[in-house]
């Protein structure tokens, strides 16, 4: 399975929750598969999906899912200790780990080599770290939501992309409808 297949698989679960989605292809894929006002698409700023999602989770009570990639987590590795030390039980970090920088041409990441992000998350103090195969992502995600415990999921999948258009929605529209969903 590749990332877009995981997103297609978990879209019915994501639909009911606030989602902060990583820059580039992940946001474009989610936008194409199931655009929702509860989705905050990152159009820039690689690495900050987990931080933005944690901020949303700490500020209000609804469940927040940050969809991130292994490359983006490596870009902002300092996020894992911050997450571990600021527990928000309405927060789930879903790292789709395909071992590559998908949006830029599938260059390998260190997570696809010796570095195991699940071990890094645990070493940083994250208490609920789940590793799963791509096909089990929906099950792991639903279990994390139901547990009402802050969870980091590392979903291992194959590298690969589909062709799709960029998001042309205005960033302020994305932000505004997301904020209205938070308040609803």
């Amino acid at each position, binding site marked *: 399975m590749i990332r877009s297949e995981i997103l297609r698989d978990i879209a019915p679960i994501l639909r009911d929750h606030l989602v902060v989605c990583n820059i580039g292809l992940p946001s474009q894929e989610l936008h194409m598969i199931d655009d929702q006002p509860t989705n905050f698409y990152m159009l820039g700023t690689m690495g900050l999906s987990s931080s933005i999602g944690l901020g949303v989770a700490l*500020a209000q009570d609804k469940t927040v899912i940050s969809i991130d990639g292994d490359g983006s987590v490596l870009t902002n590795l300092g996020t894992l200790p911050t997450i571990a030390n600021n527990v928000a039980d309405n927060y789930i970090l879903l790292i789709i780990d395909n071992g590559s920088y998908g949006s830029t041409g599938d260059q390998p990441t260190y997570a696809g080599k010796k570095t195991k992000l699940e071990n890094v998350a645990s070493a940083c103090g994250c208490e609920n770290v789940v590793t799963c195969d791509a096909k089990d992502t929906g099950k792991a995600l639903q279990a994390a939501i139901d547990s009402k415990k802050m969870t980091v999921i590392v979903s291992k999948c194959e590298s690969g992309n589909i062709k799709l258009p960029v998001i042309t929605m205005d960033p302020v529209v994305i932000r505004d409808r997301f904020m209205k969903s938070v308040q609803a």
Partner: protein
Amino acid sequence: MSINTRIVDDFVANGIEFVTTVPCKQLAGVIDEIEAREEIYHIPSNKEDEGMGLCAGAFMGGKRPAIIMQNTAIGVTINTLATLTQFYRMPLPMLISYRGELREPVACQVEMAVHTKALLQQMLIPTYHFHKESDAEELDAILKYTFMCNKPVAILTDASFWGGYGDQ
């Protein structure tokens, strides 16, 4: 009333409930004050761009944020300011220690000080410079302005404002 108490009082009076910090020696007192206040959730960041991500999230989650950091962070956060805070039009008061100004003992700090205002100007970030303690009288108005216009706004606070570096 100490200047630290006064600054944080203005934060609280303007509804700021979520503050991220990356430390600087000059900011130690104000960070202690942030940590002590029940009205404020204090979340230390490991890097300032991470902090701006947290603040963006907190704002969208319904809480007014602020970041406290050193001016060297301007070099770290240009991309985040442009593609997140400004692109999505989000407010962000940035209380910044302006290292490398008069009374600075560390030469290397001057190397970023000389770029600080130029970078902020290039980014079209409204910038205020506190040099004397009485300059802090404008903080309340600056915070209101920030949340009125939904922009990042810089408040540079130099060594003279903080009373120097002691016996160095």
